[in-house]
């Protein structure tokens, strides 16, 4: 197991991948494989240790084994989502079942469900996809965090293509107020026009 306290502090900028497997050798091996593919990865053997460092360390993607000791992969996924909804998940297992595969993707929002021995190209592709998804989720979260509740309402209707007048009617406010909210939204997001706002709402970088 990699002791988080002993390991060098993670870069706050680069997206970080966590590899969780109770087999320390396999975890380390997968982490090194990712590192060779220019993905900063750290290995963990204990789900609780990983959850414990979450507030200080935002992971872009977590690769988790399903059959582990006290806490299985799905319980860990629930705990992880509760703490950070914008982290992506990739599952791997030595005991694949159809039921688990469906649960992994549908209930726990996994990007992929990989069977051991692991198919390397598929793992790399899944992690890359997970990192992209996580980045989008984080951008959307960061942007909408600065909005007031009313600005959020106006923003939601704007990016769905409604005019100022329609928004005013729907929210029962004056068109003038809608314009004020729109100006505040543009200022806070540092965007230039509706097209960029729509791109932002999809998590795309502008």
């Amino acid at each position, binding site marked *: 197991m990699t002791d988080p306290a002993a390991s060098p502090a993670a870069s706050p900028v680069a997206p970080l991948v966590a590899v969780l497997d109770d*087999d320390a*050798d*396999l975890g380390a*091996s*997968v982490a*090194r494989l990712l590192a060779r593919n220019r993905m900063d990865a750290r290995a963990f053997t204990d789900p609780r240790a990983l959850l414990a460092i979450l507030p200080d360390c935002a992971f872009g993607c977590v690769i988790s084994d399903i059959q582990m000791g006290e806490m299985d992969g799905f319980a860990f996924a629930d705990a992880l989502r509760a703490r950070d909804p914008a982290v992506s998940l990739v599952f791997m297992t*030595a005991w*694949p079942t159809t039921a688990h595969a469906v649960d992994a993707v549908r209930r726990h929002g996994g990007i992929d469900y990989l069977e*051991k*021995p692991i198919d390397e190209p598929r793992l790399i592709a899944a992690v890359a996809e997970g990192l992209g998804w996580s980045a989008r989720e984080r951008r959307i979260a960061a942007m909408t965090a600065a909005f007031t509740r009313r600005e959020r309402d106006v923003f939601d209707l704007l990016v769905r293509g409604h005019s100022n007048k329609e928004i005013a009617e729907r929210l029962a406010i004056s068109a003038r107020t809608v314009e004020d909210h729109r100006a505040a939204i543009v200022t806070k997001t540092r965007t230039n026009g509706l097209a960029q706002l729509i791109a932002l709402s999809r998590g795309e970088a502008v």
Partner: protein
Amino acid sequence: MIDLRASDLPLLVLYALAFALLHWTASPWSGAGFFSLWYPPAGLRFAVLWSRGARFAPWLVLAELAADFSAGVIDIGAPGLLQAVIGAMRPGLTYGLALAGTRGIARGKDDTFSLPPMMMGLAAVAAPALNALLVAPIDALLPADAGRYRIGVDIAISLTGLAVGDLLGILVLAPPLLWIAALTGGPRQALPRPPSRRAVLEDALVLSGCLLLTIALWRAGLGAQPAPGLLAGAWIGLRHGRIAAWLAIVAQVLAFLPYSSGRLDDATRLELHLGIAAVVLVTWLAGSFSDAQKTARIMLERRNRLLFQAERLKTLRAMSVAVIHEISQPLSTLAIEAGHLARATEHLDADIAESAALVDRKARDLSDLVRRLRRFGGRDVDEPSLLPVSMLLQTACQIVAAELRASGGRIDCLGIAPDLAVQAQEIELTQALVNLLRNAVAASPGETIALRAGAVADEVRIEVTNPLVTARKTDAQPLGAGMGIGLVIARTIVEAHGGTLVRQDDVDTARFVLSLPLVAGPLP
């Protein structure tokens, strides 16, 4: 009615001769309104029908008519010829009906009564009973001449006499004839084990005690009471099965028949024979029941052994799944590191690069193997899916390949249309096919087994055909004979898939036809 083969003609000629002879020997026990209270030809007729199948009945009827005409039992010139001919044909046809009915009722049932020993016991009672019951209805359909059974004698007495005579004839004569046929007919029948001295002594004591009691009661003026004989027969039959029961029957019949052939009036003779019939019937049914129970017990033991095997297989499967898991964990690490090493050493010394590439390739092969093993053995539930028939047949052939090689035979499996598909549980259906192929290999060692598949209307028909090598055509064998547990399992699986499994033999080949609903549409 089955086609008559040339080899059947000597049997029919022999039958006609034996029938005429036995008919003649029965005459001392005749009486008013019935031909004989002891009628061995019925036993001969029953034995032939039981071993050749009910559909052989019309040929027997013809042979009996020929015997009756030749021996002068039926006089062509006499009045009432039609009645006489119909009367001579009736027993053969009713026996055929009774045998077919008994087998039909027992088919598909799974209890003691449907086992061959018990079925034959029931048929032996049903055949004379049906024969006697149908006398009046058939006579009623004929022109109202002075029929044999219509004259003044009480019809109940005459029919009872008929049934009693037939029953005694069947139960005394048919069993040894069938045993002889079974022993000479094929290599499969093992000789029955000689009984223990203790069993013989026990039965002899019981029988002689009961005979003495019968004689004592008779001497005391109570007439020939059947109760002691019933007791002895039931005891011997239940304790030691059909062979002992038959010996007891012969002993009782030998004790009474010489006496009853003497100067007795009809009523006394009928009463005596009714008593003998009751004793014989109870003795034979008791023996049959005992043998059926024994057969059921053997089947149960075999099923228990199979269950034990199944449990072992389940344990083995769990162990292999665990092994797959234990291997796949370190193998994951090995495969990743081997891949890395192979790429990192590509530009190094050729020897090192080659070694690393080899390790990488082997790790990949092992990974593939583990995935494949997991797909076959690691599955808990065999879920129904769309399966190409050609793939199923191929897998089944691969599984029996080793046994086939050992027997020196081969499977001819060509020309299976690639677009045939069924909705099925792969593992189960493969098992059913494997069982059929195994049976075919076992039945025709060293021969070519044909495996064919095709669409007929909205069904897929899969046929497993093997040449009949030593065994003769076996349609007339008692139900259940030769039916291994493999076939039972195959049938259960096929029927669970909404299909059927039937046997359609030709003269020189055995063929099992497995039909399943055809699934239309493109294959996965």
